[in-house]
């Protein structure tokens, strides 16, 4: 599965995005090695979604480059986009269609043959336990089901890199376990994954590489053990971000 051995699956170089005065992503440099399970962690508003949106062609950077297995997403979008599967957070789907209809639509849109699409759709719906909801339009799906059908759209064309924004947010434990297993199988088969999260134990359990970003900057990046330096990731994160876990002062009236 690996393309060229050491060519990074995803590379940000000097990536920058401003929204008015606010610098959401500030000259980020980041390398996601091929075959890695990469966790992007950071507090809310750190720039995770902004960075990942620029990585998949949904948001145009003000400066810098994004390459996927050496292909520039913004200069050579067709080649780069063919290599990735995307799961964004909180975006709409054509929600009057059933899960199978969405997969068939997307497969044909990608130029795949109908037979291959239907066969893969069957397998994906079964493995993601959505086959019980065959005729249900996506508008009637629960949050967990929506995440799972979006994951199916990301996997359908057998990409080399998965870019997932908060794949476990608001997902029930059973669906989360299913998603986790599928991602682990994907990496074991040679695929690369980058996903954002703020659930540290989950990142610690799944990832071999991790980057900590805050206020639009990468504060630490590398193999998981290097970044956490022998302590739990949660403690390392608080230390790196320089934040102090609040909640200790005041509120003396609470439960008094």
């Amino acid at each position: 599965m690996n393309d060229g051995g050491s060519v990074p699956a995803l590379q940000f170089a000097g990536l920058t995005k401003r929204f008015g005065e606010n610098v959401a992503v500030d000259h980020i440099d980041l390398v996601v090695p091929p075959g890695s399970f990469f966790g992007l962690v950071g507090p809310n508003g750190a720039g995770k979604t902004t960075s990942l949106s620029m990585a998949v062609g949904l948001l145009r950077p003000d400066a810098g480059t994004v390459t996927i297995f050496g292909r520039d997403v913004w200069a050579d979008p067709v080649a780069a986009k063919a290599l990735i599967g995307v799961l964004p957070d909180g975006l709409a789907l054509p929600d009057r269609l059933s899960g199978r209809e969405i997969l068939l639509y997307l497969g044909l849109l990608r130029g795949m043959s109908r037979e291959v699409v239907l066969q893969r759709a069957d397998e994906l719906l079964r493995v993601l336990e959505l086959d019980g909801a065959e005729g249900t339009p996506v508008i009637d799906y629960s949050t967990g089901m929506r995440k799972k059908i979006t994951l199916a759209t990301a996997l359908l064309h057998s990409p080399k890199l998965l870019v997932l924004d908060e794949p476990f947010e608001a997902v029930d434990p059973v669906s989360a376990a299913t998603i986790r297993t599928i991602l682990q199988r994907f990496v074991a088969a040679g695929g690369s994954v980058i996903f954002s999260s703020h659930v540290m134990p989950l990142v610690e359990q799944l990832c071999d590489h991790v980057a900590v970003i805050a206020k639009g900057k990468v504060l630490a990046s590398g193999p998981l053990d290097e970044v956490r330096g022998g302590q739990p990731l949660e403690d390392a994160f608080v230390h790196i971000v320089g934040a102090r876990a609040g909640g200790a002062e005041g509120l003396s009236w609470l439960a008094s």
Partner: protein
Amino acid sequence: MRRATSGRRWIGILLLALLVTLLAVTTLLAGLVHYRYPGAGADVVATLSLGWLLGWIAGPLLTGDDAALRMDYFKLLPIPARRLAHAMLGAAFANVSLVFSLIAFAALIALGARSGVAAALTGVVATALDLVLAVVASTVAVAAFGPTISSRRGRDFGTILLALTITLLSLASGLVPLIAKRLTDGHSPVLAAVVRILPSGWGAVAVDAAGRSDWGLVALALGGLAAAIGALVAAWPPLLARRLTMSARGGRQRAHVARTGEPVLPLTPLGAVIGKELRMYSRSVLRSVMLMISFLVGVLVGVLSALSGKTEGLPFAGLLFTVIAAACFTNFYGDDGTSLWLTLVVPGAERPDVRGRVWAWFLVVGPAGLLITVAFTAISGQTWAWPWVLAGEPAMIIGSAGLLALIGVVSVNGPDADGGPSPARVLKTHLALIVIPVVTMFPAAALLAAGAAGHSPALRWLAVPVGLAWAAWLGRYSLQQAQRRLQTQGPEIFARLRTSAS
């Protein structure tokens, strides 16, 4: 945003209350006035009662199960279905709409009072039975056909109900006097027979019979009403039980996909987009309502004026339908919200996406518009209109197919906070109603006008190929521009949708 939304909801409710009051008083008056033709009063009241009964059944179905006591609340309570059924039926009578309906159905009493005390008393009984029938039928209809609660779907309904009310109101103002005229003249025995034979007409039949001292028919009609109510009450507990034990998915809209059948559309990216779009046309409430409004306004405006003897407007019904359908769909990308991301992450999908959307609109609107135009022009007998409509309609369909794609990518209005159309989107639709016909048809229109002024049939017929050629160029050019814009500005268009969604 929330305040604006609830403000609009209040205006909607006020408008609706005003409208319903007007309708109720009108119905009552219909029972009071004198008719030249004997039995016409009963026909009119029977027709209006049918309208009220349909309102009782259709209202809750359209708006969703919006009663204060929603059935689904009781799913988890350990109450026997039969007891719950009777209690809920009782609670259904605590409904403010009953006041309006009482005024309306009292037309039966007014009708009876014209023939004496006995007929008036029959009217009282018939009014009571009609009211009970309305409430019971409405409750049972929701349990039998109503959507289960879903907040995402529920959002659709407020806006759409308002749009439908306004459209139907404007159309009813033309239709009702016409039906009333036919009934009161005694010119339409079939219509009169139909409205009398339906259960909603039995009250009027009873009152009419009482006026003629035909007591057998009075007993039969009132007994029939009571029996209809009895049958519905008996059917209610098992229906409720089925509704309450239904799984969350069981009652929802199914979105089947024909897996074994041969695919009709080409198995290409373009075919995929056309297929997806056609499914959205048939399943999205917003799209269906926009098509329905285009059709109702386009067709009924011509038909209504034709019924009163003026057939000059009839040939242009198809044009009116097409222009409204084009203006309503000038917000392709805005109406679909952030689902544009799917197109942007698929390499090279922008081109088939724009083209597929245009083709789907063309397939949905084009044949219908052409059919209406040709059929109505032929029926109208207005032979002078042929060059006008044959120059206008194809130009309108082909030209606006491309034009609405271009408008849709240049001006993107995301959905409002409550999922409905934003004020900017409504304004755009209104502007498009003027701009689209002017831009698509001006060369043809100029030739037609010149031909009419100079009495030149050759010039008038020349408008047909010129109109087509202009529309073909315009459609193609706009389509290419739309494609290019989505290819180069996709992320910027997406950013506007994302901002309006958050």
